């Protein structure tokens, strides 16, 4: 299942719809970086609200996405990690160090708007 990427002004928003396979995550990684280049985006929000499980592969892919986008001079914010998923991630020893996170899409947009002082 492909992850839709929505352009919102200077930002891109990728919304995870359901359980994603490794192939879907790899596709998202490539797609996001290409679109950041294409639209000269300042930031990317990855909304993982619907994600059932954040295992080692998914969290590594999110870290890689954030690093690649950082190399393009843009920022990534992960939003919507559910409390149960966060608990499982901590138990598993997974971290998203160096990646900005926010409670939900609204908070993520507020954080970026403040940071970049743009109006979408």
């Amino acid at each position: 299942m492909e992850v839709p990427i929505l352009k919102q002004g200077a930002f891109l928003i990728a919304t995870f719809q359901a359980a994603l396979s490794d192939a879907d995550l790899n596709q998202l990684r490539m797609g996001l970086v290409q679109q950041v280049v294409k639209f000269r985006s300042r930031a990317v929000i990855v909304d993982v609200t619907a994600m059932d499980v954040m295992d080692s592969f998914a969290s590594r892919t999110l870290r890689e996405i954030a690093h690649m986008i950082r190399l393009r001079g843009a920022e990534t914010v992960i939003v919507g990690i559910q409390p149960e998923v966060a608990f499982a991630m901590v138990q598993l020893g997974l971290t998203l160090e160096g990646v900005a996170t926010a409670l939900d899409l609204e908070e993520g947009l507020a954080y970026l708007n403040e940071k970049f002082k743009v109006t979408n």
Partner: protein
Amino acid sequence: MVGEIRVVINSDQDIVSARQKGRVVANELGFSSGDATLIATAISELARNIVSYARKGQITIKKVNGHNREGIAVIAADEGPGIADIRQALRDGFSTSGSLGLGLPGVRRLMDEFEITSQPGKGTTVAVKKWRQ
């Protein structure tokens, strides 16, 4: 009453399918949704180990009874290369595939019981259990 569920693992899509089935069984057995997420995460890691190291194998999910308690058992079995040094594999940060170092110790923390048997050249079986609170 839930029977035994077997999921053949030989692609990344099977990882998703195994963890989804595990969550359904956990819900049916009355686990909280938080515990069901822990169980689904553990299954995802175990299935990923099979795909990464052995290419194919199977995951069995079933109900278990203990003393005055019920739980779920997950058995991940493969006939892959096996693990030469299990103690090393259970240390945080250990990885031979270069990318996933957190699998087994992480799974051990997610579940209540953890057993591993492995023979180099013959395969690996990881059996984990979680008891309902």
